[in-house]
């Protein structure tokens, strides 16, 4: 059950990314390119996704997940260096190529060699992250 739900969620996510045009780097870079031919599509995708998701968060109240266990705890509210530094690095990479982790996976079957190279580089970045995070936490604790 847990795996069927996971696969379905992933399938809906991937199909949505494909149909919305978000695996097309021109559309993503078009949204970020405020000094060029600006493309607002991404805002519609974000809006379209946030609405069902907000309803889902409402439905978690007083309930338990279908497979049991518990829902995620309320989000932390404080901002830290990790959030800011990580988001800046991510945004730079996102602007450079027009791909983020979801669309990189969803387009793997039709993204050609470039898509596979991006995926390998992204995986390397993810594997390299924990020591960097440790260092950031360490220096933050000392300060």
């Amino acid at each position, binding site marked *: 059950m847990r*795996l069927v*739900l*996971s696969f379905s969620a992933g*399938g809906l*996510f991937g*199909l*949505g*990314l494909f*149909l*919305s*045009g978000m*695996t097309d780097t021109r559309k993503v*870079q078009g949204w*970020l390119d*405020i*000094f*060029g031919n600006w493309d607002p*599509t*991404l805002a*519609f*995708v974000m809006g*379209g*996704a*946030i609405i*069902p*998701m907000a309803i*889902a968060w409402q439905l978690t109240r007083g309930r338990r*997940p279908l497979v*049991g*266990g518990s*829902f995620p705890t309320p*989000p932390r*509210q*404080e*901002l830290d260096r*990790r*959030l*800011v*530094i*990580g*988001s800046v690095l*991510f*945004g730079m*990479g996102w602007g*450079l*190529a*027009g791909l983020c*982790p*979801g669309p*990189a*996976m969803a387009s793997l079957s*039709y993204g050609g060699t470039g898509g596979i*190279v*991006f995926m390998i*580089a992204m*995986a390397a*970045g*993810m*594997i390299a992250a*924990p020591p960097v995070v440790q260092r950031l936490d360490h220096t933050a604790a000392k300060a």
Partner: protein
Amino acid sequence: METDWIWGLIGGGLIGLGGAVFLLGNGRIMGASGILGGLLDGSGRSNTAERIAFIAGVVLIPMIAVVFTSAEAQTHLTPNLAVIVIAGLLVGLGTRIANGCTSGHGVCGISRLSWRGLIATIIYILAGAATLAVLRHVWSLI
């Protein structure tokens, strides 16, 4: 195209629906970078199968959908390999340091009124826009 925003809304709705299934079904937040990253760095060992099943859905369903649609499936990714590698490294590193990407911080965070999710989203959009502005319009590199 004029119909792009309609497909944006439809596709976005499906993305949100996927997130809703993952949350209400499995009690988990649908963040692409967290699901993949936890698999790669070993931090998600307790639910490896769940992560693999999710990623299988993300990769396989578009692969099948491409066959049934007339629309050309193209990423139009830059052919410049150096740019691809640098971008991939930054995206992988950044999303794991920030603990989330467009799906986790953007869709799942903002929809639960998470302050951190909103701030992260504003920062990566601004960083992306600034990167494009400089590299495309100032230096004409990409």
